[in-house]
């Protein structure tokens, strides 16, 4: 797995962010003395590279660990083990000073427009705070705040106002402006449009698109909505219970999916086209997603997988390259064009 990824970054030579075997677990404490009685395995060994100017989409359902992954990349949550390298510096082992410096380069846009802005401080201070922390001179900071406000589609006067005066979509724009303040190289977007109305989502997605080009950014786009991810991403990683089960170019994932989970996921997504919906044959998975506190042994998907075998119950598969162009962690990856329905009806 690492070998293949390393190979990729050697080939293109432009890996901006490198993640190797990242593990983030949370202890579950119980009892008077708060002893550890279990661990939530939120992220269990994730590796990938992020290239310059690309958008890597990370999709998965609840419990898959994508939000924790995003936060681990910025060390907002302490990774248990593994490495996150930005350029040639390691975020995971950086000391306080270095971490502060590194935070100029990688920023985050949060999901909840109502919780991601401090209600008590005016918008210009919200956007200006990162600059203040890093010692940008006041005049320069003020100018940049005005510029950023204009860039995200608001007016410089809006800097004097408070978050509660804005709508959800506008607040997300403020959040985006804040993330751009220090001119980072990488922005992790954690469900940036999930809390917005449908007609506003498109506005914000377009803004993100424009801003990416103009500011020369790379995005990690975390979302549960596969349609949105398809629209925004160059490459996509599908996560399930803390692991990446499939990762590759967008078209490969959406048109020639290989992992049974990816197949099920894609078949479950509703499409706003009645004819197609009528013609579709859905793959209905049994049961719900297991808890990340006690993931199944072997391949974590085997409990719900229609084609699981004995091997799947005992051996955890590694990510391997498949003919479609992507990497898949499965003992029985599906060939391009093969559909899960075919197999299950055999």
């Amino acid at each position, binding site marked *: 797995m690492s070998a293949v990824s390393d190979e990729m970054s050697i080939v293109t030579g432009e890996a901006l962010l490198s993640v190797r075997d990242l593990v983030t677990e949370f202890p579950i404490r119980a009892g008077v003395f708060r002893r550890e009685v279990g661990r939530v395995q939120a992220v269990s060994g994730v590796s990938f590279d992020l290239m310059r100017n690309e958008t890597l989409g990370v999709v998965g359902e609840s419990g898959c660990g994508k939000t924790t992954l995003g936060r681990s990349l910025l060390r907002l949550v302490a990774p248990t083990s593994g490495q996150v390298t930005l350029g040639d510096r390691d975020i995971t082992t950086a000391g306080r000073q270095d971490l502060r410096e590194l*935070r100029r380069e990688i920023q985050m846009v949060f999901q909840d427009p109502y919780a*991601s802005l401090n209600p008590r401080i005016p918008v210009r201070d919200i956007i200006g705070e990162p600059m203040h922390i890093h010692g940008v001179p006041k005049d320069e900071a003020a100018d940049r705040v005005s510029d950023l406000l204009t860039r995200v589609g608001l007016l410089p006067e809006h800097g*004097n106002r*408070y978050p*509660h*005066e804005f709508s959800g979509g506008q607040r997300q724009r403020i959040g985006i402006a*804040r993330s751009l303040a220090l001119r980072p190289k990488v922005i992790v977007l954690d469900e940036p449009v999930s809390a917005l109305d449908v007609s506003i989502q498109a506005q914000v997605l377009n803004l993100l698109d424009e801003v990416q080009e103009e500011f020369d950014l790379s995005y990690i786009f975390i979302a549960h909505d596969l349609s949105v991810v398809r629209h925004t991403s160059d490459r996509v990683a599908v996560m399930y219970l803390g692991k990446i089960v499939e990762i590759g170019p967008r078209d490969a994932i959406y048109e020639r999916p290989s992992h049974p989970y990816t197949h099920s996921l894609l078949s479950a997504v509703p499409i706003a086209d009645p004819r197609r919906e009528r013609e579709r044959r859905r793959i209905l998975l049994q049961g719900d997603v297991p808890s990340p506190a006690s993931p199944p042994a072997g391949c974590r998907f085997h409990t719900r997988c229609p084609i699981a075998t004995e091997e799947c119950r005992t051996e955890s598969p590694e990510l391997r390259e498949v003919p479609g162009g992507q990497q898949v962690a499965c003992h029985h990856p599906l060939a391009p064009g093969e559909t899960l329905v075919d197999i299950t009806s055999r």
Partner: protein
Amino acid sequence: MSTVDQSSANALEGLAEKPKSFGRLAWERFIHHRLAILGLFGLILITLGFIVGPMINDYPFDKPDVLNRLQGPSREHWFGTDEIGRDLFVRTARGGRYSLAIGLLSAVTATAIGTIIGSLAGYFGRAVDAVIAQVINLFLVVPALIVLSVFALNFGSNWWRLSIVLAGLLWVRIARVARGVVLSIKEQEYVMAARAAGASHLRIITRHILPNVVGAVTVEITLLLGSVIVLESTLSFLGLGVRPPDTSLGRLVADAKGNIDNDPLRVLTPGLVIVMIVLCVNFLGDGLRDALDPRARSERTGSDD
């Protein structure tokens, strides 16, 4: 760029004429809360009464006038006189000032201690929190009145000493509230955003957390004030509070209880003053809570229709 321009134009649609800070919004909400305004005015009136009243009706509080003892209310003695002829209005005013002074000093001290300890517990969590949480629980179990009584018996009942002891017992109420607020704010995304920008612990605590703690704590202070006054009154009623000829509201009630059949007014007057103060303080607290709780009057536009 057209989407952006149009958004700018429309962005102003939903906004009021002037920026409204959180403080301003809270003030507006507070002003509209009728009971709170009532409570505030009530308190102001009572306090003024305690201070200004005796300046007008200037009988000394401790001068006996046995010839005029046990008189009812008159133009000379607005509340009448007690069993040795002292003017009751002036005594009530003095007692009231005493009660309020203890209340304020202990409330302020308790708040200072409680906010700091509670916030530290909430922010740093784990070991620090575990220890402090248990300490808080311990203090909550201790019956305040008994501790106060023991202290008063042994160390005297100087008003500021009593205040310190009260603060020493009641800080936990503030600490519990502060800790709760900090715990919940800590996980808010805007705090995470500040960390992502590289903010130090100090900056996060002072800029993002404390301002939000202030709101909840303010409310708790007003409730605390009420408790202190009742506690002090009880203590004095039991004879362990102020020493004569000094007096407090509780003491006045105690003095009058002997004659309750003949002269119920003498018991009721200081008793009612206690009730009024506590009531006003509670109304004020209600109003503050409604004004400062961001969730109560959220300006959210994206909620379900």
